[in-house]
């Protein structure tokens, strides 16, 4: 009785999942170049990241459209429906992460050719970026493996990013009275904030993993009720 059916539909769904999650690899590439541009104040590399964001947006649009087509034509239900719903969320996260990289890269020319950079702050931002790279990879693996434990662990990893962000803020407070240095520090705080948001997006992807597996959506951590 158990005849295999709908193999084309299943293959298409698998392809779209791979393609959507592949967007996270694009984001990591973009994030790595962004960090390099921050480290070396590389305006040209920053411009490249900005231009390259079209690829991430393109991936978003293409997979999004194909998922809508599947919804319209295949009436997916149960796990398939949850997977498609989750992928639509993940795509939005991917697109947002790419935009945050663009935001950072747009700041780099503002700091000038020979900015009065504070080495300690740059190091913290690079550490944040590397940690966030790990989070993104982990969120992808958790999704692919439907691993809720691994997804939940993203919260712990994200705490590291949050702490680095706070340290960054502390350093900025003590940057001194030189107006140029203060301007640079404030710009870098915005960059740190953007990386911190990218890491939050990775945690959101983890929440979608839990939804696909359990059918229940629950925020791992509720920012508006931190003790709730």
């Amino acid at each position, binding site marked *: 009785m158990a005849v295999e059916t709908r193999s084309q539909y299943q293959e298409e769904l698998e392809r779209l999942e791979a393609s959507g999650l592949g967007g996270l690899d694009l984001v990591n590439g973009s994030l790595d170049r962004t960090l390099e541009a921050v480290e070396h104040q590389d305006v040209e590399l920053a411009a490249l990241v900005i231009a390259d964001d079209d690829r991430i947006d393109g991936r978003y649009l293409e997979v999004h459209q194909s998922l809508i087509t599947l919804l319209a034509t295949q*009436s997916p239900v149960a796990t398939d429906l949850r997977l498609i719903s989750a992928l639509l969320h993940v795509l939005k996260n991917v697109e947002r992460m790419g935009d945050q990289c663009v935001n950072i890269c747009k700041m780099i020319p503002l700091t000038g050719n020979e900015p009065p950079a504070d080495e300690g702050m740059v190091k913290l931002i690079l550490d944040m970026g590397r940690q966030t790279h790990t989070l993104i990879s982990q969120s992808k693996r958790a999704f692919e493996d439907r691993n809720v434990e691994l997804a939940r662990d993203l919260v712990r990893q994200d705490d590291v990013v949050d702490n680095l962000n706070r340290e960054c803020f502390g350093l900025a407070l003590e940057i001194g009275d030189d107006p140029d240095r203060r301007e640079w520090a404030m710009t870098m705080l915005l960059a740190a904030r953007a990386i911190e948001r990218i890491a939050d997006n990775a945690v959101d992807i983890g929440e979608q993993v839990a939804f696909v597996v359990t059918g229940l959506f629950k925020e791992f951590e509720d920012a508006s009720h931190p003790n709730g």
Partner: protein
Amino acid sequence: MDSRDPTESPIMTEQNPEPQADPRTGPDQSPPMVSAVGEPAAKQQRRSREIGHVELQSLNAYYGSNHAVRDLSLDFDSAKVTAIIGPSGCGKSTMVRCINRMHEEIAGARSEGKVLLDGLDLYDPQIDIVAVRRAVGMVFQKPNPFPTMSVFDNVTAGLRLTGASRSELEDRGREALVGAGLWEEVKDRLKAPGVSLSGGQQQRLCIARALAVDPEVLLMDEPCSALDPVATLRIEELIGELKERVTIVIVTHNMQQAARVADTTVFMLSGELVEVGPTDRVFTNPDDDRTEQYVTGKFG
């Protein structure tokens, strides 16, 4: 649920001291299956008292040596729509046909276990089988109006057997057609042959015919599979309206239809009950792997 004393029921023939219900008596004297016309409020009240609750207890059904329904226990809630889904041959139609005792009409077919309607065992030897089918109406896959009868005669065919007066036939015939959402379309052609209507209208005519005798339960076996999408949506809308007054059990191969119309969805496989639950849960997060596989179309 406790079984009611069958002797108190109107669908008992032998020990029921009352003769066949007099159509002119008011709703108070009238037994539940032949309630009076023009008393929607009274009817609403009856519904709120949970009339039309069907309970299957360890139901088994056979065609000769073929064990088609296996030890199935299930409740159908009052004034709710329950959809039965499952692959061909899973026993869903057989199960439904046990509820109005149509299964046993097939040569070599038999069933075991209990079917209770509001606590009354429909397989009790003293039960009047005609009254059972009046209380538990059925609509089939293919619209089957009586071919030689007019629209109006089709609707009132069942009522006529109860000895209803002409004026009552007219009232209740109209009420049934209104209830089936067909009145506006056929009010000027009540004398036309039933089979002259479109397929979708014929199916609603069959629903009207079932409603005319004021059933507690309406069984629908693939009621839309011979209809076009518009006629199908019309019937689905009607199901939503009717569930206020009658318990509906619908067998369907169209899972989207089950998802649209049913409050509760039942999944059967190889004669057995696999899963029963609120429709939204069954279609978003089913408990059983086999349900998941079936509703996502991984087998069928």
